[in-house]
């Protein structure tokens, strides 16, 4: 790998990281080993090197470059495991069958672990051994963070979000932004109520780019007469700690949401249209905190679908425009929200044209896992997206929906680049626009 790539990567304050190379690798490996239980170790141990995972990954499929083979992205950690802590570690060490992993190796692997993986989980479904390939990559990222080798873009955002609750420098506090959105779109947004059944968050990317989606969610909540509130101290739904691979920052960021939810006595935290926010709060927050959370976590589509099923939310039928839906990976494939979006679409009478790869098997938007934020990965991302846009076109759809703001950011960027004739719309907005009075 070229030095420029390596330099570009010098993340997590690598420049001022004054530990020795040895100590940094050590840090990476012990953080990695912490992620270990029997299940992860089994994943480490059982790869048969069949290469099939490459055939699941959009980055390999789009480029046919061998280095994008999913299990190869975890190679350094797999190697270190076999050499340092596997069942026959001394054997591999003495015979020199597994080379020692060096800081240079890890530097070289930054690109593979962060710049060319969305943590989308598709590779985990193809593996004939049943390995959780994507989880190995995710744990590898956590090791990289500890070695000071996570990309700066992600680390800076994560650190800032952990400290201030907002992942970027903002001119206006998000609470003010939220109020403005309410005024502009004519919806009453409940903010900082002392007690509420439901605490709601908003995706940072929607606050900035698609405020109408935030307004739409609120409109439906108001219509349902839900007892909800946003909290100034925990508006942002995303968790940049998850992207950056930092257990510590991810936990701090999650704790902010958890604390606010506890404070208002919420029995439900509603995650807006953001896949990663859902996965990290729904499936990782409690694990990081080591406690069962005193509230349920639901995605907004899940909650709305429940209301539809309970007869509390009635929707008008929309036009017959052929429509494709992109399943956000963290929400559907990995998060398990399989049916809710389709329940809503069928209630809306959407003329759904499924892509060949859909629901659990859909291709990622290619922007997930922090890749939207890593500018230098854009050329690779676009290659994968070209494929995805074609798949959407192949359905003959005229309307294109999804339920993740991060996916929309990715599609918008690709759409602009390729002069795509479709706009990526929010499913929640479609719901909000078609409430039966």
């Amino acid at each position, binding site marked *: 790998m070229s030095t420029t790539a390596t330099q570009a990567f010098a993340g997590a304050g690598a420049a001022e990281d004054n530990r020795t190379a040895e100590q940094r690798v050590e840090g990476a490996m012990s953080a990695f080993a912490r992620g270990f239980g029997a299940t992860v170790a089994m994943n480490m141990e059982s790869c048969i090197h069949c290469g099939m995972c490459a055939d699941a990954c959009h980055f390999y499929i789009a480029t046919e470059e061998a280095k994008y083979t999913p299990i190869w992205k975890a190679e350094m950690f797999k190697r270190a495991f076999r050499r340092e802590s596997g069942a026959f570690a001394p054997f591999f060490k003495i015979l020199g069958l597994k080379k020692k992993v060096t800081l240079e190796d890890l530097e070289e692997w930054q690109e593979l672990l962060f710049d060319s993986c969305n943590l989308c989980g598709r590779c985990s479904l193809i593996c004939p051994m*049943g390995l959780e390939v994507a989880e190995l990559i995710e744990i590898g990222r956590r090791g990289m963070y500890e070695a000071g080798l996570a990309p700066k873009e992600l680390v800076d955002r994560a650190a800032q979000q952990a400290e201030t609750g907002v992942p970027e420098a903002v001119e206006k506090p998000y609470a003010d932004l939220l109020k403005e959105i309410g005024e502009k779109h004519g919806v009453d947004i409940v903010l900082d109520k002392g007690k509420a059944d439901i605490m709601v968050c908003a995706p940072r990317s929607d606050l900035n780019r698609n405020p109408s989606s935030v307004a739409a969610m609120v409109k439906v909540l108001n219509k349902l007469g839900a007892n909800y509130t946003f909290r100034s101290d925990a508006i942002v739904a995303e968790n940049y700690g998850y992207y950056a691979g930092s257990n510590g920052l991810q936990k701090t960021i999650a704790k902010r949401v958890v604390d606010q939810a506890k404070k208002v006595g919420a029995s439900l935290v509603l995650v807006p249209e953001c896949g990663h926010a859902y996965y990290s709060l729904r499936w990782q927050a409690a*694990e990081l905190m080591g406690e069962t959370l005193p509230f349920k976590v639901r995605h907004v589509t899940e909650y709305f679908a429940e209301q539809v099923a309970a007869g509390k939310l009635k929707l008008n039928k929309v036009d017959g425009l052929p429509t494709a839906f992109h399943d956000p990976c963290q929400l559907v494939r990995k998060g*398990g929200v399989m049916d809710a979006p389709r329940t809503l679409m069928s209630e809306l009478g959407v003329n759904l044209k499924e892509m060949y790869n859909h629901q659990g098997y859909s291709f990622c938007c290619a922007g997930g896992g922090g890749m939207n934020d890593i500018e230098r990965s854009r050329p690779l991302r676009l290659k994968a997206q070209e494929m995805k846009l074609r798949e959407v076109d192949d359905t003959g759809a005229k309307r294109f929906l999804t339920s993740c703001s991060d996916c929309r950011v990715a599609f918008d960027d690709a759409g602009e680049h390729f002069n795509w004739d479709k706009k990526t719309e929010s499913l929640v907005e479609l719901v909000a626009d078609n409430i039966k009075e």
Partner: protein
Amino acid sequence: MTLLEFARGPMLHFALLVFVFGVIWRLVSVALLGFRKHYSEERNSNDKALMVGTATCGLRSWPHKEFIGRTAFGEAVGYGYHIGLFTIVLLGAPHVIFWQNLFGFSAPWWPTLPGGLITVVSVLTVVLMLIATIRRAMHPPLRQISNFDDYFTLAILYAIMLSGLWAVLGGPGRYEFILAAHIISFNLLLIWFPFGKLMHAFYIFPARFVNGYLHAKKGAAT
């Protein structure tokens, strides 16, 4: 002691010891790491997750339709040489006798296939293994991820297959010597088994089960 006696005697016993204890240790060392407690509210009950985990053990043997277009060839070859290997080892007359002697039982009901048929299967299996090896060396992702273990394991299997065929087809050389080579290669396979990828035979179902189970708890795709 002749070479053949050595191969059938002390070496085989040593190899069996390494195999049994090695396999047990490799499995136990993983299990010792412990299974973590999970705190997230699960989507599906434990019973359902157990069911899905069990189902995944079988279902993952067939690729999802979304993948089959890209993986069919590799999988067909893989199925081919596995079926070949199992047929030879479990239905070839000399092997059936060997297993009975090894485990000390007599099983007149154990079916065998005619030697000629086994020879044909053996040749086909070698051809499929050749294809797998060539793919490993040529197909970019396979080439990228392959290491010593992959080639060494294949080399041992070739040694077994070729010496076996040599003995059956009566190639040049003394029969005892060729047979000794066959058995020594088999012993090597046993010795290497716990250290390398051959462990997949033991890991495959636990790995599929665990991941199917954990995914089912979340309601995620399996």
